[in-house]
């Protein structure tokens, strides 16, 4: 696998994707300036529903869905430039959990499951994934939460954590254990009991924990058991890829924040950007972002060719590792390079550093990715 990996230098980027990138860039710059990001942090909902409706109108929620379900069938890789721009603008929307849930239902759902849920997603209905558990790690396959069959229904038990936008989701894809194997089951928003909003490091997120005890749903809400393993793998890789996109976008605007300060703040009679102790790390952040983007768009290319190959997994994990590393470095240095101001809530550096902690801790940090890569490559 190593030689094949080194030889594959494919990056495809269509005119359609270029248009998408351009549109997303302008949209995010317009709708998500930093003061707006900060204002939304203070609000309970955490995002602007009018902006979200526009995202749907732009077709972003349906990009990875087939035309039969109201999507455009562009493929999951096409979301990469969009999510990258959203990361750049620290934009809060339920887009990522929604498209992931949609793609999983499309992948492992029956027609009877796809028909009610997917067109809604294409139109901007929120969907999400409930995978995390209190004592769980990054492995998606072992859940303490479970379901048991009870005639035509299944009864859920256990609890889920770190579920984004659970409070407004129409449908939630929940991972559980059924007869000793991992299964995915669809739960509708109205079927959930009490939700507790969790306090998370990235304050632009709205994240919840909840108990599954007492919930029962029709048995035909279980996704195809034969496709569960695939679905879990898809979730992991697609999430890693979008996290990488978000992280690189964030790192890029973090670099802009650094450069702005280095070009305005003076000490000892000169702009601090003239000091190489600051300039050189800034250049390193730049090269990290540039190289990260090369890896990211390679991953997106392979993902759209065939998401399920080892080559795609390798490309995605590389992009995630590279993106996390540079996003963390950029955020970390942004704090330091702002001096005392960097220590304040008011300085934007914290927004980026917090987001990079979130992305890193999501679906495996750089070290985790490299462990997996080593197993795939050596």
């Amino acid at each position, binding site marked *: 696998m190593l030689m094949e990996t080194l030889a594959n230098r494919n990056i495809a*980027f269509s005119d359609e994707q270029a248009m998408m990138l351009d549109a997303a860039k302008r949209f995010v710059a317009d709708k998500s300036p930093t003061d707006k990001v900060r204002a939304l942090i203070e609000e309970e909902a955490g995002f602007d529903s009018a902006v979200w409706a526009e995202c749907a109108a732009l077709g972003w929620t349906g990009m990875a869905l087939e035309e039969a379900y109201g999507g455009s069938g562009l493929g999951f890789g096409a979301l990469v430039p969009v999510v990258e721009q959203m990361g750049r603008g620290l934009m809060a929307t339920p887009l990522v959990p929604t498209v992931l849930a949609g793609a999983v239902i499309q992948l492992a759902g029956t027609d009877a499951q796809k028909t009610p849920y997917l067109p809604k997603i294409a139109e901007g209905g929120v969907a999400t994934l409930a995978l995390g558990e209190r004592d769980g790690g990054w492995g998606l396959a072992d859940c303490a939460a479970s379901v048991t069959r009870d005639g035509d229904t299944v009864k859920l038990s256990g609890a889920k954590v770190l579920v984004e936008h659970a409070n407004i989701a129409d449908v939630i894809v929940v991972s559980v254990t059924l007869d000793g194997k991992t299964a995915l089951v669809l739960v509708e928003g109205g079927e959930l009991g009490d939700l507790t909003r969790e306090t998370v490091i990235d304050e632009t997120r709205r994240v919840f924990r909840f108990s599954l005890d007492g919930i029962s749903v029709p048995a035909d809400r279980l996704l195809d058991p034969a496709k569960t393993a695939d679905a879990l793998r898809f979730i992991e890789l697609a999430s890693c890829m979008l996290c990488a996109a978000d992280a690189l976008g964030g790192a890029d605007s973090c670099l802009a924040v650094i450069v702005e300060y280095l070009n305005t703040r003076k000490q000892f009679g000169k702009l601090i950007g003239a000091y190489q102790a600051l300039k050189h790390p800034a250049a390193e952040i730049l090269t990290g972002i540039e190289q990260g983007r090369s890896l990211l768009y390679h991953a997106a290319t392979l993902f759209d060719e065939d998401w399920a190959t080892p080559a795609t997994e390798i490309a995605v994990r*590389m992009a995630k590792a590279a993106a996390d590393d540079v996003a963390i470095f950029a955020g970390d240095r942004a704090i330091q390079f702002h001096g005392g101001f960097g220590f304040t809530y008011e300085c934007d550096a914290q927004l980026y550093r917090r987001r990079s902690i979130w992305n890193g801790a999501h679906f495996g940090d750089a070290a985790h990715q490299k462990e997996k890569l080593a197993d795939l490559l050596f």
Partner: protein
Amino acid sequence: MSIDPQERAAFTAEVKAWFDDNAPADPGFLLPQSFMEVGTDQQFEFLKTWQRKVYDAGYLGMAWPKEYGGHSKPQWMQDIVTAEMTKRKLPFMVNTIGLNWAGPLILNMGTEEQKKAYIKGILTADDIWCQGFSEPDHGSDLGNAQLKAEKDGNEYVLNGSKIWTSLGAHAKYMILLARTDQEAANKYAGLSFFLIPMKIDGIDPVPIKKMTGEYGFCQTFFDDARIAPSCLIGDEGGGWQVAMATLAFERGAAGGQAGGHSMNSQSVHEVVALARKVKRNGKPAIDDPLVRQQLAQFVIDQKGLHLNGARAKHKPLTEDRPAAVPLMGKLLGSEFQRRMNEFAILLLGQNANYYVGDEDAIDGGLWTRSYLNSFSATIGGGTTQVQKNILGERVLGLPKS
């Protein structure tokens, strides 16, 4: 412009077949790893013959104009040849300075006479080129170069010295940055750029021993050496602009090179093979979790380097900072090699003590030698620190240091 896949495949097959048949056999003596390390006449003659053979096969200067000795073929063909010879770790093209920076410079800015006089000999390796930029007191601060070129009658008279002149002892020509005006408004304005012969009275390249114990570069002394005004390229006083154009070719930031590789670097798969072979705590090093993670990181780095070029072909993916990818390649590539060879030395354990020449040295001492030689690229051509200044200032718009 899209390339017909069939044509591409056919040409690739042709190239592979030619290298299968013509790759030189092991000469029985140690070959240098790059054009900066050619230390003996034996090495030099061997490499010169090899370059000539590649040129005669039609595989060098493929995209250069036929009228000057090139082949007027599309660039993608040359790229395939270059990639193939790099991959096979064949001996490099010894006339690197001619092929990759003096040549493109002459084709870009030279007069018709200069193109006719120099291009063919660059390709055939009959005319080896060297570069007279750095001076003992002015290296990174190249704009401060002080070697004097004074007009005397119808000639320029050269006095001073250049240093770290790679291939200086073997070269027939030099690209030279010299000061023609001591009283110019600023340090840059007094500089001019020349294409000069090396084998004339008053020019004396004296070899300097490198840290590996081998030779490869010289200090070149100029003592009343006289050259014709036709040696000038660009305007008198316009040398700095020409030097900047040269450096863009040298660092790969601008295209137009004749092709062929200029050094044999290590690929991460070779370090992986080493990690399988050597032991740590009685087990293959490749079983060690930290070794595995570090190797995975090198795979990411190496792959990222290649992918940067692939991404640069898509304008929308680089339009925010089009200069970034071209300006960072030399920095990332050279530092990657240094770090990876350094890591390989750690893998050797106790055996790291053995160097080239000892029968117990793993891989013939390759890793230590490669590590030491990797500094040629982190220092030569503008140091890593200077490259970071360039990225910070030109790409990010930070103030000058």
